[in-house]
């Protein structure tokens, strides 16, 4: 019964989404107020039914209703409750359901918090999001229904993919989806502005906080995903340039460009056409990512060709959304006239250059991700494009970004003189180059050009940001800093500082990490990276739904106890072995131990040990960036605008009553 209710709820949500997609846009076009007014109830109705549908599937998981195929394939009775709840989005059908729920959640929130935006505009925005909802609900109901029943329900379900049985899974996908789907808001605002023919700075102001929040979610989602891969996959890596990772990284890069471009459009009225285009691209790449991950095209081009129903649907949907919005753009963009002037040396140029580089980077990643698929589909040959390619393209393209992050903030709007800018930047440049090389020579184990470059860039960003603080403070000094800088300003400060932290992490951990695979007997010890790892043996025991071997490794440094690590090797009921690394985390280094398998009868095991300097900084940098984004989204101006709108509405209703 419950699954049928869920199914019905999805169908009703589709009906609501259709109403939401058709009437508000048509009403805004024809000037029919009653149609425009349908936007909010339809969006909230869709949210209600999506929530019911989602709750029904969750209930199926909690009650072990194995007559639902999706529940039977992805859970069993011994699964801990956390993974019953997070298992809902652990595989294809459920993650689509979650995607769509997230979309209706964003839509609902937009209708509730857009009082400062004209009703017609909100109607158009909600309408555009409705179109996207319709596409996803149709896709789910036609090709990937989570509520499909089994004729002969099994007594026991299968297992949730053991990889996903980790608290990381409980937070990574929701954050990622909130970000992915959140770009639909920026997209919808851009389309709505084009539909209304009003491409001024206003739409940028309205959509900016939403875009910032979506970007924060996506940043956190990627950071947590990377961290999860690091401790869960057992090979100590934090990024593999896997197509699935790229699918989330490309929208992030374009989203970063969009966040910056929106700021310029809002503040200076410049880059209007460009910002609209970025909003379209950011969401298009989110959709493309979903296509890549969900259609099966990544697993095999040929498997995709033999069972194309899902892929073809998404491709059609993609072409409608992306093609439609680009058509609209080409029609409207020519009407956008920008009268803003700026010279070669100006903050505008810096931001444009940043945007161009980000765009080029995203295009290159897209090229590398799709290239092998295209070659294979054309029958030209099978090649692999992996980390060596992406690293050699990505690093030279993005290193200038760190330089620009410093220059851009210090350059003046519109017009700066090259000479005064150079004079201002001379000191930080000297200090960062000197300091970076000095640190690499004296503070690190051995000299490396890569590490030197990384440290120079990081110092450069740090110093230019401090100089920016000093400039903002003006004559008042420290007091001025706190008085003059807005939350958005602090957002920029922390976001850029995040770049510095991230660069340090990437450079040091990729150059100075050491690792060793070895055979080790009980009581033996091994020396790596200045630490002694003493193996105290491994014991067999049972977890809630798996058996495991649990090793004990005592780490010491010059005789002093540092940590005791317990690496595990788990056997889940599905028969898949999993390693659970023992990690001692630290700000300057991680110690990472993974258990292999028993060798011989005398209690010897194979063991992998990593010493990873500064690896935490990679994620710490991401957290800084997210914090910066959050500050920017919470700028006081938006609250002031909202308050003004509320007061106006209240005044109007009061006036109406009198």
């Amino acid at each position, binding site marked *: 019964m419950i699954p049928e209710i869920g199914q019905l709820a999805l169908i009703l949500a589709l009906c609501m989404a259709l109403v939401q997609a058709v009437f508000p846009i048509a009403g805004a076009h024809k000037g029919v107020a009653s149609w425009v007014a349908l936007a909010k109830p339809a969006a909230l109705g869709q949210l209600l039914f999506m929530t019911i549908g989602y709750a029904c599937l969750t209930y199926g998981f909690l009650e072990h209703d194995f007559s639902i195929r999706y529940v039977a*394939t992805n859970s069993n009775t011994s699964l801990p409750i956390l993974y019953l709840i997070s298992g809902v989005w652990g595989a294809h059908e459920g993650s689509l359901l979650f995607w769509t729920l997230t979309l209706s959640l964003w839509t609902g929130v937009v209708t509730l918090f857009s009082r400062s935006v004209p009703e017609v505009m909100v109607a158009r925005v909600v309408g555009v999001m409705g179109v996207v909802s319709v596409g996803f609900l149709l896709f789910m109901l036609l090709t990937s229904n989570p509520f499909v029943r089994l004729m002969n329900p099994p007594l026991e379900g*299968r297992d949730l*993919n*053991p*990889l996903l049985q980790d608290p990381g899974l409980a937070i990574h996908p929701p954050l990622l989806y909130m970000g992915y789907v959140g770009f639909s808001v920026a997209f919808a605002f851009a389309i709505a502005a084009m539909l209304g023919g009003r491409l001024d700075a206003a739409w940028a102001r309205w959509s900016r906080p939403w875009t910032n929040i979506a970007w924060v979610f996506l940043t956190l989602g990627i950071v947590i995903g990377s961290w999860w891969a690091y401790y*869960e*996959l*057992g*090979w100590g*890596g934090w990024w*593999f340039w*896997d197509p699935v990772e790229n699918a989330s990284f490309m929208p992030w890069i374009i989203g970063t460009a969009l966040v910056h471009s929106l700021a310029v459009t809002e503040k200076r009225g410049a880059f209007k056409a460009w910002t609209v285009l970025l909003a379209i691209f950011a969401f298009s790449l989110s959709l493309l990512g979903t296509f890549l991950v969900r259609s099966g095209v*990544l*697993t095999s081009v040929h498997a995709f060709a033999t069972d194309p129903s899902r892929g073809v649907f998404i491709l059609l949907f993609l072409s409608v959304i992306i093609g439609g919005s680009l058509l609209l753009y080409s029609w409207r963009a020519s009407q956008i006239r920008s*009268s803003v*002037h*700026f*010279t*070669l040396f100006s903050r505008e140029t810096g931001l*444009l*250059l940043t945007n*161009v*580089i980000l*765009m*080029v980077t995203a*295009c*290159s990643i897209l*090229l*590398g991700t799709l*290239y092998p698929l295209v070659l294979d589909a054309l029958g030209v*040959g*099978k*090649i*692999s*494009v*992996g*980390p*060596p*390619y992406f690293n*050699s*393209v990505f690093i030279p*393209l993005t290193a200038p970004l760190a330089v620009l992050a410093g220059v851009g903030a210090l350059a003046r709007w519109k017009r700066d003189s090259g000479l005064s800018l150079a004079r201002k930047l001379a000191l930080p440049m000297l200090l960062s180059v000197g300091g970076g090389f000095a640190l690499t020579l004296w503070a690190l184990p051995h000299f490396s050009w890569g590490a030197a470059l990384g440290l120079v860039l990081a110092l450069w960003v740090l110093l230019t940001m401090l100089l920016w603080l000093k400039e903002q403070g003006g004559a008042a000094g420290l007091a001025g800093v706190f008085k003059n800088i807005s939350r958005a300003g602090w957002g920029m400060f922390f976001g850029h500082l995040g770049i510095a932290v991230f660069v340090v992490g990437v450079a040091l951990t990729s150059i100075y990490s050491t*690792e060793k*695979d*070895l055979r*080790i007997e009980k009581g033996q010890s091994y020396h790596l990276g200045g630490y002694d790892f003493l193996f105290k043996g491994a014991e067999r025991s049972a977890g809630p739904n798996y058996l495991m071997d649990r090793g004990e490794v005592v780490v010491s440094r010059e005789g002093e106890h540092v940590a005791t690590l317990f690496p595990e*090797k788990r056997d889940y009921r*599905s028969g*898949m*072995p*999993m*390693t659970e690394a023992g990690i001692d985390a630290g700000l300057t280094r991680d110690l990472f131990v*993974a*258990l*292999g*398998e028993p*060798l011989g009868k005398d209690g010897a095991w*194979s*063991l*992998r040990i990593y010493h990873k300097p500064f690896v935490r900084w990679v994620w710490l940098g991401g957290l800084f960036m997210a914090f910066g984004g959050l500050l920017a989204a919470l700028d006081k101006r938006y609250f002031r605008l909202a308050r003004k709108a509320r007061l106006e509405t209240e005044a109007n209703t009061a006036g109406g009553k009198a």
Partner: protein
Amino acid sequence: MRRILVLLVLWSPLLAFANIEAYRFDNPQKEADYRVLIAELRCLVCQNQNLADSNAELAQDMRRQTYEMVQSGSSKEEIIVYMVQRYGDFVLYRPPFMPSTVLLWVGPFLIFAVGVGILLLFIRRRNQEPVVQLSSEEHARAKGLLDQETK
């Protein structure tokens, strides 16, 4: 049901569990070469994993092969040539530069040049356009609007 099984079979090599082999090397250079090679060579039967991270039997065999060749004194280049002869270009995560990959390797830098070119053109053209001068009346209106905004 069959499709589920297929899915599970396809997934299993992707699963996170790297076999750990305790190879001994004659010198650190050989060990370093070995590490680079197993990081840049692909496990052919996995979805997207290098030899270092894979637990598939083929990956274990290829690691042993790599180890033996490194130990017997083959250079990195020789081992890569050997692997490509045996398994094709697919085995390399660093695609070789050849006619079908020209676009892949040149593409990013081409896009970069085009992007920066357009940018410079755009800025130059922008500066040649005449600046719109506001009449004093427009100026006063704009100022009024601005004041309203900041209130």
